[in-house]
């Protein structure tokens, strides 16, 4: 498929990759541009259907109002949680600085 026909341009792929903190090679950018375009192209076919009699749905399962009562359930221990952390300090997760510019 030629670049011209792609619904998702290479620039858009790079933008989304940046938001997702992914670094892609040129080949991957090309590949994903094509694959994402295919997916959107398929979604576009749905536009041809007459859906005027169907209200928009936000979820494929027809359920609403699924609740839990406000009752405390015991949490897991700090040790168990922190044991999984790559780095910790005094029971807290230690992560690289957030704002460093």
């Amino acid at each position: 498929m030629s670049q011209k026909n792609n619904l998702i341009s290479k620039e858009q792929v790079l933008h989304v990759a940046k938001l997702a903190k992914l670094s892609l090679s040129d080949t991957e950018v090309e590949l994903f541009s094509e694959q994402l375009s295919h997916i959107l192209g398929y979604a576009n076919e749905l536009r041809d259907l007459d859906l005027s009699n169907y209200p928009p749905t936000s979820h494929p399962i027809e359920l609403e109002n699924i609740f839990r009562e406000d009752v405390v359930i015991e949490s897991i221990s700090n040790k168990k949680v922190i044991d999984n952390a790559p780095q910790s300090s005094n029971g807290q997760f230690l992560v690289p600085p957030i704002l460093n510019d």
Partner: protein
Amino acid sequence: MTIQNNSTDDSEYSEYEPTIGLEVHCELKTATKLWCGCKNSFGEQPNTLICPVCLGLPGSLPVLNKKAVEYAIRIGLALNCTVQPSIFHRKNYFYPDMPKDFQISQYDIPINTDGYVLLTDGSKVGIVRAHIEEDTGKSTHFSSSGRIHESTATLIDYNRAGIPLVEIVSAPDITSSEMAKSYVNELRNIIVATGATDGKMEEGSLRVDANVSVKKKDQIELGTRCEIKNLNSLRSLGKAIDYEIDRQIQLLNSQKKVIQQTRHFNEDLNQTVTLRTKEEAEDYRYFPEPDLVSLNPTGEWINEIKLNMPKLLIDRRQSVIELIKDSKEMSQLIGTVNTLVDQQLDTLFIETVGFGSDPTLTLKRLTNEAANSIDAAKKLNSKELAYLINLETSGKVSSTQSKAILSNLLENTSETVDSIISRLNIQSFGDKEIEQLLDNLILEKQDEFKRFVDGDDKVIQFFIGQVMKLTKGQANGKSVTQILLKKRNG
């Protein structure tokens, strides 16, 4: 009011006007978090109130807390909003305070829309929406200098992650820092009265983001706005807004552009500083949360919530006003009524007046004398309080005596007024006793009495002073005045 940054009195500044919209985040007082059964509690050991759901571990699923929805609806009703069917969205961003790498929030279809808040001066601020979302974890930045920009590492505590929040977004109807403070104060009082939140800014259970822009007065289009994050006191809110208005006007006046960005208020420097510039980072790629179904509160449930929720602030103030509306001082008492209700003493007031005490005097005693010990005041027995106020109104105890008895009553709310009177040896100086004292005084101070008889009313104070000296402040000044006037008029 002191004017800061000279922004309002400098003529070149007067051609600009600020536009301010506020986002207020309030934590809900549920027992558990929004999506899991972890305890909702402030000030616990870090990372002890967490589970696979609020840590965002693979395979865990959120289930909506019914009480949180009820509280959100209470807030919506108190803010005159429409409560509507809504859905949840994922707001995607990379920031370690959200372990899932997204925050579950409401986007285009929030639970509450289109409300308003009436400020105490009568002005109105529109509420665009009040939606449900989860709080993030708490990050502490490590650095040798203490500055956020120079931090070397960040510590994360997820106890707060997943605590239910309602975010209340105002319309850009606010035009000054004073109005912003007045709005937040009134909003806080309203939502605290619903019982849904405790509104403690100092503990971070109520946090404010301010969107500020300025434009020339004749310009229709709004100026470029900056968002100031996480203002956690009314004082910082006011200062940050004043600084930001001034900064933007100075930029525009020197032909520079305001850049749309997120800013942080530095309390020490008293100024706002850039946190991040809005560009791609603001692309949150919202999409419907597939792990949650839609929220569609039935009319029946909303009605039940409305019926069972605590009385609205505005109605509580009205109930007090009804009782004092015949008072001559009514117009000066409105602020006092608000204070009474904000301090949760209105129920006690209404009960006390129900026992026959004078409403105006009861209001004054509760908001002045009891103001320094609110917690004790809440425990006061309304019948005893009414008894005390009645003793004062009928002149059986003086106002000084009454205040002394009340302060003893506040120290031990289970003691009776009569027991305090006998314990403190408070003597009631009735009109007869006072008249006797006055008769003796008049013989001693004939010159003064003659001046009074000749029409010099200032001498009344002199006699009150003398009587007070003799009774160690236990006589009623009003009685002294009345008796003297009776003597002069024959």
